[in-house]
């Protein structure tokens, strides 16, 4: 739908931009699924069922869990990558459009990131 998509066939820089965005999406997806698959395998190996009730999200505990090969470390890190991948794709698009000098598309990408950030800030403020 964007100009980059439209021009991708004719414009080499548009093709490169599309390829770099696709790389962010695919590498993020594969990394997340790999982490989740390892976590799920460790979960089953530890005799934990999906309905056992998981622990609360604690970012500080993730490195320790990873080093100890506990399933929760891999699962939380995988979920963080899942959640972060779409926003990373928008960020990659923003950088690509900025390099191409497409100010309008930079604005659109920046607005999308702003909306994501605002919704998180508003929700956490309301929670507090």
């Amino acid at each position, binding site marked *: *739908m964007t100009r980059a998509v439209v021009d991708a066939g004719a414009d080499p820089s548009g093709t490169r931009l599309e390829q770099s965005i696709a790389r962010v999406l695919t590498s993020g997806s594969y990394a997340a699924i790999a982490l989740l698959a390892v976590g799920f395998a460790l*979960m089953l190996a530890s005799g934990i069922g*999906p*309905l*056992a009730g998981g622990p609360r*999200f604690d970012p500080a505990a993730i490195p320790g869990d990873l080093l100890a090969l506990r399933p929760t470390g891999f699962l939380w890190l995988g*979920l*963080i990558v899942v*959640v972060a991948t779409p926003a990373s794709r928008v960020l990659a698009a923003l950088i690509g459009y900025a390099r191409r000098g497409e100010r309008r598309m930079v604005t659109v990408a920046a607005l999308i990131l702003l909306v994501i950030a605002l919704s998180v800030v508003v929700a956490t403020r309301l929670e507090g």
Partner: protein
Amino acid sequence: MARGREPAPPAPEDAPAGAGEPAAVEPAASSFQETLSGPGYRIHRLGWGLVGSVVAGLASALLGIGGGLVKVPTMHVIMGVPLRVATATSNLMIGITASASAIIYLIRGGIDPFVAAPTAIGVFIGASVGSRTAHRIRLGVLRGLFVAILLYTAWQMLQRAFG
């Protein structure tokens, strides 16, 4: 890419009726609208598309249904986006908008990793198979599938409302 008042290239196979027609339908198309066109089709009725997106967001938040059920018909039928492009675009948009609420659920502790992991793996497998086979499936079958899912969702919503 379609430009200005040049005649649009022929509509692709899965373009809705009217897509790819000359800009005579919308003579006052803005330059921004012109940039939102693809090979073989031209976006039109951008304002109605925005209205449809708002309805999609409201339906998604109020009824718990995926916004794609509204966004895909809006893009395909109203804006003239080919069905395959509309479904791919809807997927991307859902990923971005859902990530905002997912971050909030993550921070609030509303995600159970033991349930989320196998679900995400299943969705990943299904989405990979779906996106690789979508272009091989006849368009009529894709449309039929979409209508069937719409009807099933409508039936479920009716049951929840009156059941």
